[in-house]
Structures are given as C-alpha cells and as structure tokens.
C-alpha cells in the first residue's frame, strides 16, 4: 500500500507541470483537471473516485469523470482527498502593526482592512494548512473594537487584492475579562473604563445611543437635501460612529468575542433593543448552555475545539461545545484565533466526532460551509459545487484523519501552496540567503580594510567579526516557497 502511494506520489510530482507558484500568479488561472480523487463536496455528498475541472478560477465541472480540455494541466490525485478550502472565522494574520487599538474603549474608528499585510508569512503557512479564506479580526481589548474584513489568502498579491469581493465588512465586539481587564493591566496605561461586565454593557449601549443620534442627524440632513435645501451644512462625519450606523442598518456584521452565558444573553438583549443582529459569537465557550437562545436568535457560533481553563471565564468550557450547539440547530464553526492553530483546523474539526458524536460530514462542515454561511459568502465558497470559486485542498489522507497532510491548496484556481514544490525549493532559498550574507560580509570586510588600510594589527579585527557558521535553522522563517 505504501509502495503504491509512493509511486503515485512520484508520478504525481512528475506529472505536475512547473506551475508558477513562486511568482505573482497571473490573473487568468490556467485550466486544471484534478482527477481520480475522493471528492468531499460537503453539501452534495462524496464522490468516491471523481474529477474536478477548474476554469477561470471557478469549479466548472464536478463528477465521476470529466473531459479534460486539450491544454489543461492534469493533476492525478489517485488515492487523495479533495475538500473545499478551509475558512477560518477568527484570524489575526496579515495585520500590519498591533492587532488591537486598545487605548480607548470604543475603537470602531480603526479598521483592519486598512492595515492588511500581504507580506505576512503566516498567510503562506495557513495555506499550507488548507486555509483559503480568513476573517481578519481586530483583537479583544475593547468592548467595541475595530472594523474587520474577510480576505482570501492570495499569497503573492498586494494588500489591495486580498479582501474577499462582496463579503460584508464586520466589526469586533468583546465581552468579559479582556475588555474589562480584571486580571491584568497594561504598564503605563491608566485604568480604563469599563472595569466590570456591567460597564462593558453600558459602553456598548452608550456607543449605540450616540450612533443612533448621529444617524438621526444625518437622516435629517439628507431629508433637507432631498427637499431642495442646498445650503444645509452636513453634520461632522465621525469615523468612529459611521461603522456603528452601518451595524444599525444591517450593512455590517457584528462578531462578538464572549465566554459566559450571561454576557451572551446580555448582548442578545442589547442588540434586540437597538434593532440590530449579532452575526456571530466568537469563542462562545459556554454557548452550549444557551444553545436554544442562540438558535432562536439565528446567531452563528464560532468556537474552539477544546481549549479551556486558561482564564476564569473559560473554566466551564467543554470539548462537546460545538457538537451540542450543532445538535440544537446553531450554525457552528471551529476557528483558530492563532496562526499556528490555523494550520490544522481539519483535525480540530475532527475532534467533534469524538467529543459529541458529530458525523464525518457534520464535522467537516464546521470548517467549510458553516463559516462560509456565518460570513455570508456561502454562495461563493465553502463547498465543491459547480459555479463556486475553485478554492480547494488536496490531502493525502481523509482530512479528518490525524495523518492528513495538505499536498496542494488552490485559491481562485491558482495553486498557491504545493508541498512538493515547497520542499524542492528550500535549497535554492537557503543558498540565496547564504549568498547574500556572504556578500554582505565580504563588503563589510572590504570597507574595514579600506578604513584601517595601513593599520598595524589587522588580525585584531577578525575575532570581533568572525561569525559562527549559520546552522540549518528549521525554526527560522526562511522557507517560504511563495516568497517573491
């Protein structure tokens, strides 16, 4: 069995044409056929041995057999599994600078979309874990935090090309210990209101009361203009309140970090009072306690697989959380909140089979179609269906197996991660690195020699500048096959 797999792998490697994963992918994706794989469509069942045709970045055909066009690149995925790309509903990768604008309690003025960092190697690493779309959130330092954006992990593209077209923007709220900072303080920073859960609630109410008033003043102004009054002065635009008005108008999703059932219910009440909906609760580790309320309110839950007790408010967390909420009818996703965790979300999803007895298909949904629905992008991604984006992952084992390793990751039909190519390309990158370091050393030596040209003791300088030979560093962030 292993010999066969190895042979297939070799054939696989040889058959894959040298596809440009290193350079910026061209806008037009090549025509690709993935054949002979076990296709886990997520929404339309499993095809035991089938093929997918990718054209123009979309899934053009899916079935037991597909006619490969003449100049198509053929990927033989015999013995392999293809799934939709994983969608991470809680991510902080690709943010330039601090993840939190933590100085003030309501920092809705800040926007992660304006500081996307397309150079962040975590984009590539998460691709290597099968993630193709991520919800880039502000941190949890504030009752009302900054605006958020959904991106596709288009490694190699500039920041302006990362946002997921058409996905509604979001905003991050946080409830509980993090915004009230009961268990820690920031050195040098004065204690910031709120410091209690009731304060967190009042902060949110206060902000939305202001936003409502602000919205009214703009509505009044717009009415005047519509009525023909050209001299009316518009109200001062307040970038802090604009996103809150969008929440009231249903144009911006609320993603709220929370833990305890009391604060979960609190936010549902506040939202109802002000007339907006919470889109997702994030972490929501006590969600199983209020699963019915969540299901009734139609709020999604995005949680951890099995993290618990790292804070007092996480003490009642159980690994059955996702399964229990699912069984009560809540749309549940499992997220990472961490660049490393995001590299094995398939296995995190699998844990819900053991803890809670979710079926294989239900578990896979937790990281594919469910987060897609939560983010309102399920018409484009989250399952393998004709017409959807060609965001796919090829695994060498069933994705929910502990042995599964990502072989290739596609985004918009481009292969942005290729395990074999990555490994093959490391030597060249290492060489480039060593060549550049040697070049720098030679230049430094030359200028030292020039400066102390006639200096009496040139040997004295050597001990200072002699470096230890660079050791092979697995931990060093060097092996990014997609580096430009």
């Amino acid at each position, binding site marked *: 069995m292993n010999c066969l797999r190895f042979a297939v792998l070799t054939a696989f490697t040889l058959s894959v044409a040298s596809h440009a994963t290193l350079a910026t992918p061209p806008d037009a994706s090549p025509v690709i056929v993935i054949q002979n794989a076990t296709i886990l469509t997520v929404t339309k069942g499993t095809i035991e041995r089938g093929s997918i045709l990718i054209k123009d970045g979309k899934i053009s055909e899916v079935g037991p057999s597909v006619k490969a066009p003449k100049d198509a690149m053929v990927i033989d995925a015999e013995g392999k599994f293809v799934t939709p790309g994983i969608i991470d509903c809680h991510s902080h990768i690709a*943010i*330039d*600078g*601090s*993840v*939190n*604008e*933590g*100085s*003030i309690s309501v*920092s809705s*003025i*800040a*926007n992660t979309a*304006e*500081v996307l*960092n*397309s*150079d962040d190697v975590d984009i590539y690493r998460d691709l290597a874990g099968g993630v193709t779309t991520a919800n880039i959130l502000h941190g949890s330092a504030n009752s009302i935090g*900054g605006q958020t954006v959904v991106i596709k992990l288009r490694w190699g593209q*500039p*920041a*302006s090309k990362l946002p997921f077209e058409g996905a509604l923007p979001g905003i991050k709220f946080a409830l509980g210990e993090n915004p009230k900072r009961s268990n820690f303080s*920031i*050195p*040098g*920073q004065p204690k910031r209101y709120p410091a209690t859960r009731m304060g967190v609630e009042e902060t949110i109410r206060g902000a939305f009361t202001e936003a409502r008033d602000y919205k009214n003043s703009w509505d009044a102004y717009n009415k005047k203009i519509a009525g023909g009054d050209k001299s009316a*002065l518009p109200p*001062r*635009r*307040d*970038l*802090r309140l604009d996103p809150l008005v969008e929440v009231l108008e249903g144009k911006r999703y609320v993603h709220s970090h929370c833990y305890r059932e009391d604060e979960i219910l609190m936010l549902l009440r506040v939202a109802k009072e002000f007339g907006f909906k919470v889109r997702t609760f994030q972490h929501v580790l006590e969600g199983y306690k209020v699963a019915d309320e969540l299901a009734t309110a139609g709020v999604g839950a995005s949680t951890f697989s099995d993290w618990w007790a790292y804070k007092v408010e996480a003490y009642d967390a159980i690994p059955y959380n996702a399964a229990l909420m699912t069984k009560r009818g809540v749309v549940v996703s499992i997220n990472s909140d961490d660049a490393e965790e995001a590299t094995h979300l398939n296995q995190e999803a699998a844990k819900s089979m053991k803890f809670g007895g979710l079926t294989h298909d239900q578990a896979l949904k937790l990281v594919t179609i469910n987060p897609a629905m939560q983010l309102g992008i399920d018409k484009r991604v989250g399952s393998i269906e004709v017409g959807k984006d060609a965001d796919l992952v090829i695994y060498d084992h069933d994705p929910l197996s502990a042995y599964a390793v990502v072989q290739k990751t596609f985004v918009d039909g481009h292969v942005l991660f290729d395990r074999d190519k990555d490994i093959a390309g490391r030597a060249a*990158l290492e060489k*480039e*690195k060593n060549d*550049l*370091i040697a*070049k*720098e050393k030679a230049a*430094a030596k030359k200028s*030292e020699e020039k*400066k*102390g*040209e*006639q*200096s009496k*003791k040139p040997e*004295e*300088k050597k001990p*200072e500048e002699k*470096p*230890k030979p*660079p*050791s092979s*560093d697995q931990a*060093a962030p*060097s092996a*990014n096959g997609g*580096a430009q």
Partner: protein
Amino acid sequence: MRSTLGRIGLCALLGAMVAICLFVTASPAFAQGGEPQYFAIRGAKVVPVSGPAMEDATVVVARGVILAVGKDAAIPADAWVIEGKGLTIYPGLVDALTDVGLVTAAPAPSSENAAAAGPARRAEEAARGPEDRPNSTPWRSAAEEVSLADKRIETWRSAGFTTVVSSPKTGFFPGQAAVLDLNGERSGDLVVKALVAIPVSTKPGSSFGRGFPDSLMGVIAYEHQVFLDTDWLTKAEAAYEKNPKGTARPRYDRASAALAEVLEDHATVLISANSALEMRRALELAARWKVNAAIYGGQAGYEMADELAAKKIPVLVNLKWPEAEKDADPDQMPTLRTLRLRDRAPSTPARFAKAGVKFAFYSGDSVNPKDLLKAVKKSIDAGLAPDTALRALTLSPAELYGVSDRLGSIEKGKIANLVVTDGDLFNEKTKIKYVFVDGRRYEIREPEKPKDPPKGDITGKWKLSYTTPEGAEESTADLTMASDGTISGTLSSKRGNATILSGYLTGDHFTFVININIGQNFADVTFSGTYDGIALKGNISVEGYSIDFIGTKPGAASSLAQVADLAQGDAR
C-alpha cells in the same frame, strides 16, 4: 599760491576721503573679512545640471546671484578671480528632507498655547480619541524655528550642501517644511521659502500605554479623521460666520486650522513609506485625502517602480541604506526579505530613473553628511547614471518643492549656490575646496593633521566611564585608526549614536570630536587625553564644561587594577 595749494590740498583731502568712503562702501563688513560682492571662477569645469558640462568655463557671481556662465563669460573689472584650473563647479547640493537648522524640541506649551491647542489638559493625560489631536503639531514652522546655533549647518555646508529642506520631526503631523540656504547672519536669513511641504508620519511610535492611538490602524484612522475635520471645519466656520443663529458654534481646532492653511497653499504632503507594502498604502492614502503627495523613504522602490511612475508620485529616497546592525548577534539569521532589501535598496534610484519616477535624495537618519555622497556612489555602482544622481541632489528636489526657478542648477539669474571641488563629486578622493551659498564664499579647510606619528594603535571597541552631574555613565567608542594616526568611528551612549567628525592620535596624545544633542541644542563634544597602549585616560569637554573619563577595552581588562597587573607582567 596759498589758496591754490589750499584748494589742491583740500581736494586731495576730499579725494582721499571719498576714496576711503568708496573703499568702505565697496567692502561692507563680512564675517570672513572683506569678501567681494563680485567674483568669478575662471577656467574651471562647470557642471550646470540644466545643460551639458562645460570645460574651461567661467562662472561670474554678483550680489549673491549668478551673473554669467560660460566659456566666454565676461568678468567684471572689480571681480575677485579664482583660477579654476583643476577645479569642478557643481550646483550646491540639496538635502531634500532633514531637520538641520532646527535645534529645540517642541516649544513647551505656554498657558495660551495649551488653551488654543484644545481642551485644557495636563501633559500626563493620555489622548482619549482623535479630538485630542495626539502628537500633532502641524502649526510648527521650520522657518520660524530655524536657528544658527545648530552646528549641523556648518557640517552640512562643509559636505557640499548649500540648501536643505527642513521640517520638525516628531509626531504624526510634525510641522511645516521650509527651504533653507545654509548661510546667514540672522536666523531668518536662511529661509528661502517658508512653507513647501508637510510631512505626515504613520508610525505609532512608542505611544503604547499613553493613549490613542497605539496601533498602526489607529494612526491611519486618526489621520483620516483629521483630514475630514479640516475640510468640514472650514465649511462650518464659514457657514457660522454667515449666520450663527440657532447653530452650535464650531469648536476651534488649532491643528485643523493649520492644516487648512497648508493645504490651501498647495504644500506637498510627504507621506512616510519605505517598504512596498507601505508605499502602496501611501498611494491609497494620497488618493483618499486628495492631496498633492510625495513619498519619503522609498527604499524598496525597486519592487514597484512602474506603479509609482503610473501614479506620478515623486519619491524622496532615504540615503541611509539598510544594512546589518553593527552589534547584530551573528547567530541570528535575518529573514530573506530583509537580506534582499539590503542587497537591492541601492538599486532603487536606477530603477526609478528607468521607469520615469521623479525622485530626489535626502539624508534620512544619517548623522554624518559625508556619508551621503558615499551612499549616492553606492547607487551609482548599482546602475544609476552619475548625471541623474547629481540631478537628484540638485535640480530634482528644487523642482519638487517649486523653487527650481531660483536654485538647483548653474544658470544665469539663479541664486549663487555652488560647490567647487578638485575632482569628480562622487569620487572618494575628491575634496571640496569651496562652497558658495547665496554668493557667500566658504573655504573648506582640511581637518588638522596629527603632528607626530602615533604611538601604538588605538583601534578597537572602548568602554568609556565617567561621571556627569546626573551620575555615573558609560559609553562605547568604536574606533579605527589609520596609519597616520587619523581616528574615525562611532560613539554610542544613552544619548544616541554619533559619528566621530575628526580625531587623531599623535604620539601618545589622542583627541576626537563628536557632535550630539545634549539637551537643548547640538554641541561639539571633545574627548582628549593620553593612550598608554592599554587604556585611555583624559577628559571630555563640552561647552566649556569638562569631566574626566577612563577608557578600557572590555574583555581585555575589566578594571584599571587588572590593567596595572597586566602592565607589570603578572600572568594569571
């Protein structure tokens, strides 16, 4: 006859007096002692930048302005002539962004200032939002704060820079940049144009824990709000003046008021951006704020030259090329991205030239202006044409800032800012002989040469220990000595890093000088004393104040006692 004699004598006396008067008026008091108003450099190589270079040509200067340039330029009879054989004349160099000329920190807010700046608050209170206008002083004007006390004026001038574009440096909106000529008797004389640009920085700085904003996204959002407020306040104030009845009065905001004035004058907004990521973001910011923008930093420009050319955004290129830190841990591998930037940054100007991006050079964090020409040479080695390099130091910055009608090249009618060298400007061995600023001649003297040959080699890393009024202190001096005893190197202390401007070891006596900010202004700090082969012993002199110090080599001997032991030959 007596009366005739008397008349002749009187005439002679009057004539003599008139002659004396003429002599006196013809040479008004100059600091350098009797400088002429007319002079000519005859028979030199002239590189005008605005046209092809000329051999054996003459430049005539009258009253601070270039009167004539050319092979057949007529030299006025009373001009003082400098024979230009073997000399090359370039336009005075322009440092496109610096803070030379500004010595003081932000003026301490007086009670009036504080009131005008916004809601009255103690200095310790952190900013609670954009309305508090954190770290923003767009009203500060380099033209108002320029001071001749800044020693760097002379340092820059001696390195060939006749003109600098200076701006305050700290904060998100640090202030207003002015074009300064490095010559004058009163501080105001330096100002060529008071307001040409305002820098805008997006670096959050170490404001963590000190209030809004403490993240990059917070800073950017803040700046968006400031531009929106500036636009709105202008309209709101106008509307209120027209009819105040029934409307809440708009709040006065000093920052918005200053910004509005600046934007009305069409000053260039300089946005800081060094990596490709930052530059692309800067392009978006410029578009969103709808301003005339230029980027300063630009070192990763080689990655995106075509994009910049397409958007027609000029770039000020920072000449402090990224390089490995001197004290870097040799075990710590820099990332490939960092290594690539260090390797390719000097090729950015050549790429810009090829793609048609307008660019100029500026000193960045360089402390020693002599390093600037070396840095330009590096970019020439990486493919930049020397002519284009020279233009980026002269006419290009003048054009960028709208003063190319009066400086930046050697043309009739322009300000007489010239650099006269004994060879090619970018050749390391070339010496600058004279610098003319506004027609005033400065002779550049060679640094003092040591008299006796040095005894021993003072090269190495020294730990200097001394006691200031503030307590015991230590600095590190990294010295390199040439065979003739000339000392060069750097000094680092809690006050920052400084390059040694000059120094030598003669016999067993050493001396070296740095120029650093010692609180209120920049000053020369002179280290001098004796070197006995093992340790340094001497005193530090700054502004008349002197303290003793001891210098030891860490590792070789950790205390003078051990030094004494070693000197006595006690092997351990």
